[in-house]
């Protein structure tokens, strides 16, 4: 902001300091960097003093990371988990969007299905894990089922409420111009619902990640979850943190990808529903 000469004169007369005093609020980036450095340094110092059976420290975790990432076992586990995750989540997305569209568009479908959808949505999915293991065994199919169930409901509920909020005007204009039901779906309802669907997918990715970890921890046979259980039972705390950090990174990366995709595919609405 440029000051005129009068103002400058007044300032000079009052002899006010022209530069702002140093305040931490003006250097938030530095504060963040300091925070990260302090936390890691403290962890390193105190972690070294604790019995390594119970707590590890950053440099040990870094060493363990380099050690196990190259092993065959680790790569197989990670790929196995990703495979199950991808299959379960894809099925959940396809079915969730389809059922959500049906329930949102047709009242008969809504009334027939909503008792089950609401009941299953409220049931904590982890409670179904022992049952699904009983039905599908300890292999991939039970894990796929758990990922599927974890990812299904966020997508379904978001699609459903998205279709319900499609403006009646849009549908009526479409009808007035002679669009059939198929055209209405592909040209009006689906685009208008897309922002909601994408928000649902973002929730679903996170839930599915939790689903797969829990399932693998419970079966403890293959995958990243099994590695977690194995390393913690062996009290190899430094190795334990490697899958934990990778899973956190995976969650952040996937959620960012979906967010980017959402901005790219559905830039016309900023709404999102967290259910």
């Amino acid at each position, binding site marked *: 902001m440029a000051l005129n000469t009068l103002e400058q004169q007044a300032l000079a007369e009052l002899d006010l300091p022209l530069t702002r005093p140093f305040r931490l609020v003006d250097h938030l980036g530095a504060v963040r960097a300091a*925070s990260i450095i302090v936390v890691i340094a403290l962890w390193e110092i105190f972690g070294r003093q604790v019995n390594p059976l119970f707590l590890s420290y950053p440099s040990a975790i870094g060493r363990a990371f380099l050690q196990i990432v190259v092993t065959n076992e680790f790569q197989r586990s990670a790929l196995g988990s990703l495979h199950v995750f991808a299959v379960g989540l894809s099925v959940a997305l396809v079915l969730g969007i389809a059922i959500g569209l049906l329930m949102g568009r047709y009242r008969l479908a809504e009334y027939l299905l909503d008792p089950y959808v609401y009941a299953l949505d409220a049931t904590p999915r982890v*409670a179904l894990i022992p049952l699904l293991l009983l039905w599908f065994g300890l292999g991939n199919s039970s894990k796929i089922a758990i990922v599927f169930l974890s990812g299904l409901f966020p997508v379904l509920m978001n699609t459903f409420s998205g279709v319900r909020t499609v403006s009646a005007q849009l549908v009526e204009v479409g009808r007035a111009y002679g669009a059939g039901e198929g055209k209405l779906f592909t040209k009006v309802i689906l685009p208008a619902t897309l922002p909601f669907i994408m928000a649902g997918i973002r929730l679903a990715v996170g839930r599915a990640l939790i689903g797969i970890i829990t399932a693998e921890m419970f079966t403890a046979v293959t995958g990243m979850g099994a590695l977690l259980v194995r390393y913690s039972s062996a009290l190899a705390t430094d190795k334990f943190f490697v899958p934990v950090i990778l899973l956190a990174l995976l969650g952040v990366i996937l959620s960012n990808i979906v967010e980017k995709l959402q901005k790219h595919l559905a830039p016309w609405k900023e709404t999102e529903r967290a259910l």
Partner: protein
Amino acid sequence: MAHPTDEQIIEELGLRRDRRRSIYDHPNLIRLASVTVFLLLWEFFGRKTDPILFTYPTAVAEAFGKLIVSGELIKQLAVSLSALAVGFLASLALGVALGLVLGMSRTVEAFCEPVINALYATPQVALTPLLMVWLGLGFSVKVVVVFLFAFFPILINTASGAKNVSAAMVEVARAYLAPPAQILFKVICPAALPFIMAGVRIAIGRALVGMIVAELFTAITGLGAMLSLYGNIFETAKMFVVIVVLAVLGVGLIRATQWLERRLATWKETERAVS
């Protein structure tokens, strides 16, 4: 000449008086029919399957009666609920307190943000095995897992609530020389309350998941342990009882927080700071 009344116009045009009756006038009848048919089919086909893998509604009801009479269900429910209550109340107290601090000081927020984001991004289930190594298999590990699951939604929502308090309101309070404590309790807390309650609603569902996960893995006491136990001895009907109880608990807790949200935070539509 007098204008014709609506009645006369309807008469003259020969319009039908009553709307044609439609099945959609009674959505609950459709829902009832759907659930009845489902239960009957389940009963019919369930009786034909192997009782080790599958069960049917009357068997579940019978198992429910048995578990109530033996007192087991009530006992384990009490254990689970006490862990849930302690963990949740702790996360509520700490989450709100830290959230208010973060919301009011940008420096503190910048300092804590990297740590909070890192912990929030980590799937909390993945930390359960380590927590079991640290805390054993008892009550305390359940409380800590519940706490971790519920803490972050409350913290993050409270912080964004406190950040969004209208600057005008705070300035008016300052102008009337309100001391900082009064600004906190009479201005910021009430204004942040709707946000806090939204966080509580998300947190209560996650706390329930945390409780089940912790009990599934420790498998000694509580509803999750019952699930795990009955799964291992193939008592499918009893497993279903526990799942239904957990579903009812989930619905009940979420309904209760929604009710509380409406009662406590009726002023949701306040003006927002445009900072």
